[in-house]
């Protein structure tokens, strides 16, 4: 008798395969693939390389008669100045609290809702799904003013709950997880259901365990989107103690004079944590696929 908490077994035991040296054709096609991949990556990453290259140039050399990608003068002064000018550590902390808070809550609430929409059969399911999608279609400019007025009525302006709660669930996340849950084979859940496990138990022990890559991916997306969000934190906070990194960066864009070097350096500082997070998730991602046992 199997219980729902057993580790999932392999659908089909992979036969032991003798290792085979890759054929010549395989090497050639891999070579082509690599070349195309590298070319695509270089083209796509070029503007960001440009940002980095400019961040280590003195300000006066960024807009010059003879632009070059890198300059002979390398300086870290833009970074030092950007760090001091906007009280980087505090903004960083605010951004982590905001993006982190939203991500954690959103993962929890989105996955619960997605599970219901994907696996539970109840009247009104499709209606709810369409309603959820509708929230995705709202341009924020339409919602902004009524939402602001509502928060003001609640006296939630300039508070953490006002900043985080309206974002604590997200149609994108619900949609994403619903699609993912729907593509997980049902056998394990059905077996657990027949065994009498509660829905919540199934959700927690079976589905969530199998969805680690999707949850990691979604968590990264949520974190990233809120990390870069400029307008929302600025609208909700009425004093600068709750400002996030993007708002700090925006201070370098003057009305008449743009401090290019500082903007570039600040942007690099803001991107680095996200890149690190992505690289870490990447590895966990592939690890979790390997240990999930379904493949």
């Amino acid at each position: 008798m199997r219980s729902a908490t057993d580790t999932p077994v392999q659908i089909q035991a992979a036969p032991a395969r003798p290792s085979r040296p890759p054929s010549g054709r395989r090497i050639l096609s891999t070579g082509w693939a690599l070349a195309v991949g590298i070319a695509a990556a270089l083209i796509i990453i070029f503007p960001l390389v440009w940002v980095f290259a400019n961040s280590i140039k003195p300000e006066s050399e960024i807009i010059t008669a003879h632009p070059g990608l890198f300059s002979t003068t390398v300086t870290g002064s833009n970074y030092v100045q950007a760090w001091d000018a906007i009280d980087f550590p505090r903004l960083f902390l605010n951004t982590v609290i905001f993006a982190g808070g939203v991500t954690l809550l959103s993962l929890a609430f989105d996955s619960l809702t997605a599970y219901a929409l994907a696996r539970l059969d109840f009247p009104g399911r499709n209606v709810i799904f369409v309603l959820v999608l509708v929230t995705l279609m709202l341009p924020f400019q339409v919602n902004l003013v009524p939402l602001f007025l509502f928060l003001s009525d609640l006296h939630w302006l300039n508070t953490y709950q006002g900043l985080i709660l309206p974002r604590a669930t997200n149609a994108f996340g619900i949609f994403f997880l619903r699609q993912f849950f729907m593509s997980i084979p049902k056998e394990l859940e059905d077996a657990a259901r027949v065994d009498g496990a509660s829905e919540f138990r199934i959700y927690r022990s079976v589905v969530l365990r199998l969805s680690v890559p999707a949850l990691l991916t979604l968590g990264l997306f949520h974190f990233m989107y809120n990390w870069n969000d400029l307008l929302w934190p600025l609208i909700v906070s009425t004093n600068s103690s709750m400002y996030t990194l993007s708002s700090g960066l925006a201070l370098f864009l003057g009305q008449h004079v743009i401090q290019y070097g500082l903007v570039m350096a600040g942007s690099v500082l803001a991107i680095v944590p996200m890149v690190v997070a992505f690289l870490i998730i990447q590895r966990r991602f592939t690890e979790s696929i390997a240990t999930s046992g379904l493949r």
Partner: protein
Amino acid sequence: MAALGLLAAGCSSGPASSASSGSSAASGGHVTLTYWNGFTGPDGPTVTALVNQFNKTHPNITIKMSIMPWDVFYQKLLPAFASGNAPDIVAMDTQQLPQYAAKNVFLPLTSYYSDAGNDTSALVAGAVAGTKVNGTEYAVPANFAPLMLYWNKKLFAAAHISGPPQNWAQWQADVVKLSHGGSSPQYGIALAENNTIPMWPILLWENGGGVTNPDATQGMLSDPASVGAVTQWSQLVLKDGITPQNITGAEADSLFQAQKAAMEMNGPWATTGYQSAGVDFGLAPIPAGPQKTVTLADVVAMSVNAKDNPAQVSAAETFMTWWNSKSTQVDYAVHTGFVPTVTGVTAADLAANPDVAQFESVEGTAQPYNLGTQYTNIETNTWEPAIEKILQGAPVAATLNGANTQVNSYLGG
């Protein structure tokens, strides 16, 4: 100097002195004021330092300032007023001021101006002109900048032109001489028409035309003077390539800094950047036009929330007077390059930043770009698209006539 003495006396003795500005002050009470503005960029630290200095020297008033980018500022301000969360002091470009003043969110400041204790007669006339809506002042200048002609000495020398142009004939000849196309084009001038301090309107004014008349009650785009100015200069753009079509203010600045453009009409904030980029430039007044010599006054001014109580109003007025005192303005000007909002500042006072003195010399010819309460409709919806189309080759007279009809419909309606 007597004025300075009065101001010094007024500033240092706290609430007792605010009685002199005519309103009842809560004696000994502490007033906190919120102040929103868009002084991002290199100006920000200077403004912050000055506000901190004010807070230290005025123990009964605390100004809590929030700096944010201008587009976020305008997006926050409206809902803030609608929900009653608006700040006590707001600094905004005087081009936007009439729209807000018309909605009665700002306090009319007639009594502030008429009170001799505030020494408002020392303020630059062009700056004050920008604060008026239908003849009533709704703001006090916070910064002031006239435009001058930047010219690149090296490029001029290479084209064998001895000095900056003095009038339109020379100016138009020079821009053509200084422009050449090819794979590495050079432009005689960097003339921006969107997202910029107004440059094209100066050309219209100097020919006797304008986008609207000075009161902003009627459109002037179809006046022969306006059509003439636009025709002359757009022909130079289309035929002689004197400037790239349709560039922003930031792009114009970049062109001049990269020494790809030999001239630019710009304000004093750009001098530091150009100097460190190694551009050998000179400053000259805008060349005399056929009808007049005029330049633009770019003014940001402070307004007071109409819902503030008398104690807050008088604290705000104390701040505004302090801000426009000569010592504060000299400090501000020397660090940011803006021209002091008050007259009577000598070149010796500004020795630490000599470019400012040059800009100060043209403040008498500076006029604000005032489009009244229909600013957005006229500027963004009508004028800018019109000039953009003309610079892509559309017929001048027909486009301007159509634009003028639209302007009049906004003004009349």
